[in-house]
């Protein structure tokens, strides 16, 4: 990895029932993620993705680029706007520095052209298994 390099983009389209599976896997059963009627009653367009699911996609793009789970040492994100099921998420990132086996990647996640995770920064330890 060299400064200026783009990491391999990661694109994924969560299916209609993804939020239910993620709720079970993560333990976050907030009804705004799993109940269409409830979500609409509180003014949302419908069930929204868990922010931490979307963050997990950003993390996955880093560990894919870094060569495995050990490579990801730090990840910080800001959530901006809501993610929706059945719409493609695209994670992108750019290496801003790479020194002494540690790379800093500026990254984010967009859906329908809107950046729903921005100002994200990952620290990767290179030369991994």
């Amino acid at each position: 990895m060299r400064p200026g390099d783009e990491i391999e983009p990661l694109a994924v389209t969560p299916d209609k029932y993804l939020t239910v599976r993620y709720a079970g896997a993560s333990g976050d059963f907030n009804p705004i993620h799993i109940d269409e009627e409830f979500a609409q009653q509180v003014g949302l367009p419908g069930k929204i993705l868990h922010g931490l699911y979307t963050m997990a996609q950003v993390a996955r793009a880093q560990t894919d680029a870094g060569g495995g789970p050990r490579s990801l040492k730090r990840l910080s994100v800001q959530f901006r706007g809501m993610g929706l099921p059945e719409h493609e998420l695209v994670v992108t990132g750019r290496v801003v520095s790479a020194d002494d086996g540690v790379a800093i990647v500026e990254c984010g996640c967009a859906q329908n052209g809107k950046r729903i995770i921005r100002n994200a920064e990952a620290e990767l330890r290179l030369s991994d298994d």
Partner: protein
Amino acid sequence: MSVNTAVIGKTYPPAHYAVGREKIREYAKAVGETNPLHLDVEAARAAGYNDLVAPPMFAVVYAFPSLWPVLFDDEVGIDFSRMVHGGQEFEWGPLVVAGDEITTTVSVADISERAGNGFYVFASESVNQRGETVCSARWSNIVRGA
């Protein structure tokens, strides 16, 4: 809205989490992981791990339950109906594998008010059964003003 900054620094009793192999698999599948270290015990062992390796973001699973007492603390006073998750940071130490026992301690790192909105930052520190810090996290929530 008014925020109670007197509660900054408050620490809550530690919460324990036993990491199960099938829970790692369930989480890995839900987030779309394809790395066999998270799905195939033999592959994980061949790579030198004792058991299935948790994806880094599995920290959500073992650390999040420790936040409930903070979120429901009347002294902190969060109005859930107005709360949004503003930001998140994780810093990882050694990888977590199935069979690990994780203890997480949470504290109130910061509370402030800007433009009528409340900003709440909670810090969590998760250690494994060997006392190694496997994940430090900062959970930032915004409670919109009325």
